[in-house]
C-alpha cells in the first residue's frame, strides 16, 4: 500500500480548531489581553483600593470612606483645588496663545522652511528631560540670580525681588513654556484639516473675517481645541518637576502630595487622592469623546488622516 500524496492530510493542530481569522487578529488579542489586564485594569482598580482600609502594605477588604475623610482632613482638598486652579488657568492661557499661532501655522504660513523649523521646534521638547527644561530658571530668578542682579544693578529695586521663584507666579511661568507644544499640535492638526474652499466660500458670500472665524473655523477646530485642552491640562495636573523646581515648598501640588503620602507609607490615602484625579480624568475623557463625536470619534480622526 502506497501513501497517496493527494489524500494526505496534516494532523489536526490547534490552528485547525480556531476560527479562521487573519494572523494579526490573534496577536492583537494576545497583546490586548496583556495590556488591558496588566495596565488598564490595575489603573482602574485604584478606585476600588481607595475604599479599603489597612496599614502599610497590609490591606483588609472591607469598604470604607475613611481614606477620603483622612485625605480631606489633611488639607488635601485645598491642595487639589490649588492644583486644578493653577493647571486650569495655565491651560486657558495656553489656549489663547496657541490658537492664533496654530491658525497662522496651518493656514497663514506659506514659507516651508519656516514651517519645518517651527514643527521641529515644537517636537524637540517632547524628548527633553523635564528637569533640564526648568532647572535653569532657579539661577535666573533666584535671590542672587540674573534678573535680580540686573534689577539691583540698574537701581529699579532696592532689595531682591523674592516672588520671582518659589511662588505661584514662578509655577505659572514654568508651565507656560513647558506645555505649549501639547496645545499647538492638536489645534494645528484640526485647523489644517479644514478645507480652504470653506474659508473662501465664506469670504465670497460676504462674511467678515471675525464671522468666518466664529462660524466656520471654531466649530470645525473644536475637536482639536478639546484634545489640546485634555493633553495639556492632564499632564500639567500631575507634573512632578515644574511645581517642585519653581514652586518649592510654597506651592505644593498634586505630585508632591502623592510623593509625601507614599514616602510615609500612607498608601491608601494616596490611593484616594489618585482616585479623585482618575475621576477628573474620566470626566475629561467623556468630554473628549463628545467633542470628537461629530467627526466620527477617535477612529474618525485617523480615518481623516488617510485622505
Amino acid at each position, binding site marked *: 500500500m502506497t501513501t497517496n500524496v493527494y489524500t494526505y492530510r496534516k494532523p489536526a493542530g490547534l490552528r485547525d480548531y480556531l476560527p479562521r481569522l487573519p*494572523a*494579526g*487578529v490573534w496577536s*492583537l488579542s494576545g497583546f*490586548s489581553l496583556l*495590556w488591558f489586564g496588566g495596565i*488598564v485594569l*490595575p489603573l482602574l*482598580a*485604584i478606585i476600588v*483600593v481607595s475604599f479599603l482600609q489597612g496599614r502599610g502594605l497590609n490591606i483588609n477588604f472591607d469598604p470604607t470612606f475613611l481614606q477620603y475623610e483622612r485625605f480631606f482632613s489633611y488639607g488635601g482638598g485645598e491642595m487639589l483645588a490649588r492644583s486644578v486652579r493653577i493647571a486650569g488657568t495655565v491651560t486657558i492661557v495656553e489656549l489663547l*496663545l*496657541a490658537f*492664533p*499661532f*496654530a491658525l*497662522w501655522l496651518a493656514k497663514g504660513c506659506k514659507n516651508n522652511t519656516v514651517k519645518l523649523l517651527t514643527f*521641529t*521646534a*515644537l517636537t*524637540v521638547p*517632547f*524628548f*527633553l*528631560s523635564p*528637569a*533640564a*527644561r526648568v*532647572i*535653569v*530658571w532657579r539661577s535666573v530668578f*533666584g535671590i542672587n*540670580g*540674573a534678573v535680580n*542682579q540686573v534689577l539691583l544693578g540698574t537701581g529699579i529695586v532696592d532689595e531682591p525681588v523674592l516672588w520671582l521663584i518659589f511662588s505661584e507666579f514662578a509655577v505659572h*511661568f514654568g508651565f*507656560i513654556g513647558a506645555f*505649549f507644544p501639547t496645545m*499647538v499640535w492638536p489645534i494645528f492638526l484640526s485647523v489644517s484639516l479644514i478645507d480652504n474652499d470653506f474659508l473662501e466660500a465664506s469670504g465670497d458670500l460676504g462674511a467678515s*473675517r471675525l464671522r468666518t472665524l466664529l462660524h466656520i473655523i471654531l466649530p470645525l477646530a473644536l475637536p482639536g481645541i478639546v484634545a489640546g485642552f485634555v*493633553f495639556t491640562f*492632564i499632564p500639567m495636573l*500631575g*507634573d*512632578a*518637576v515644574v511645581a517642585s523646581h519653581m514652586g518649592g515648598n510654597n506651592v505644593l501640588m498634586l*505630585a508632591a502630595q*502623592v510623593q509625601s503620602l507614599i514616602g510615609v507609607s500612607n498608601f491608601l490615602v*494616596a*490611593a484616594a487622592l489618585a482616585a479623585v*484625579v*482618575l475621576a477628573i*480624568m474620566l470626566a475629561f*475623557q467623556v468630554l*473628549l469623546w463628545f467633542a470628537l463625536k461629530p467627526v466620527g*470619534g*477617535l*477612529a474618525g480622526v485617523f*480615518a481623516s*488622516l488617510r485622505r
Partner: protein
Amino acid sequence: MTIENKTLARFRLPFWQRLTDWAPTGIGIIFGYSVLFILYFPIVMLMLLSFSGDPLTGIPGDWTITWYEDVIFADIAQRDGEAYGSNFRVGDPLLLSIMLAFITSILCVIAVLIVGPVLPRIKWRGPFLVGFLMPLMIPGIVGGVGLFMWYRLVIHVKMGIWSLVVAHFVWAFPFALLAMLVVASRFDTRLMEAAEDLGAKPWQRFWQIEMPILKPGIYAAGFFGFLLSFNELPFSIFMRAGQDTLPLYLWIQSGAHNTTVPLIYAMSTIITVGSIGLTFLAIKLAFGGGQNDVRQ
C-alpha cells in the same frame, strides 16, 4: 467680484484699514514665537551656564569645562574607592537608563508591529484605541502610583528592573502607536492580497511588502520608545527598586544640594544635546524618506 478685483480694491484702502487684515497674523506670530522663546531660553541658558565659571548666578561667562571634568572624574574616583569633592555619581544611573531605553525601544517596535497594521482594519477599534491611548490621559504620577498600588499592594510583587520596564513601556507605547497609526492608516491592504495571489508566503509578505511600507512608523516607534523612556520621570518615581534612573537621580540631586547644581547642568546639557540629535535623526528617518515610498 473676481479675486483680482478684490485684491485691487484692498490696495486702494488707506493703510490703517488694511492693518486689520494682517493684525491677526501678527498676533499669532508674536504669541507663538514668544512662547517658543520662553520654552527654549532655559535650554540655551543651560548649555551656556554649564560652561560658565559660576553657574549659580545665572549669568554666563568665565568659560570653563571644569564641570564636565568633574562629572566624569567624580564617578571614576568613587568607583576606585577614592574620596572626591562631590558625591555625584552618574555612571550607574546612566547605564540603567540606556539599558531601559533600549529595552523599551525594542518592546515598542514589537508591540506597534502587532497592533499598528491590524487596528485600522478591525471594526471595533474605538475601545481598543481608548484603552491603548489611556496613559496619555492620566497624569504620569497617578499612573505610576496606580501601577505601584496594584503590583505592590494588591498582588504583592516586588518592584525591580521589570517594573521600570513596564512603567517606561506604558508611557512610551501610546506615542509610538500614534506615530505608527499615521503610517498604517494609509496602508493599502490590497497590496498584501495581491502578494498572496502571486504566491508570496506569509513571511515574504511581511518582509517584502509590510515592513518597507511601515518603515517610517517602525523607526518612529523605536526612537519614541528610546527617547521617552530615557527622559521618563513620574512613573519611575514609584516603579523603581533601589536603583535610580538618570532623570530620577538628577531630579533628586537638584533638590538636595547646591554644590552639585553645576554638575547637573553639565550632565543635563550632555543629555539634551544627545536627545536633540536623536530627535533630528528620528524626524529625518521617519518622515524624510518620502521619495522612496511605495505610492498607492
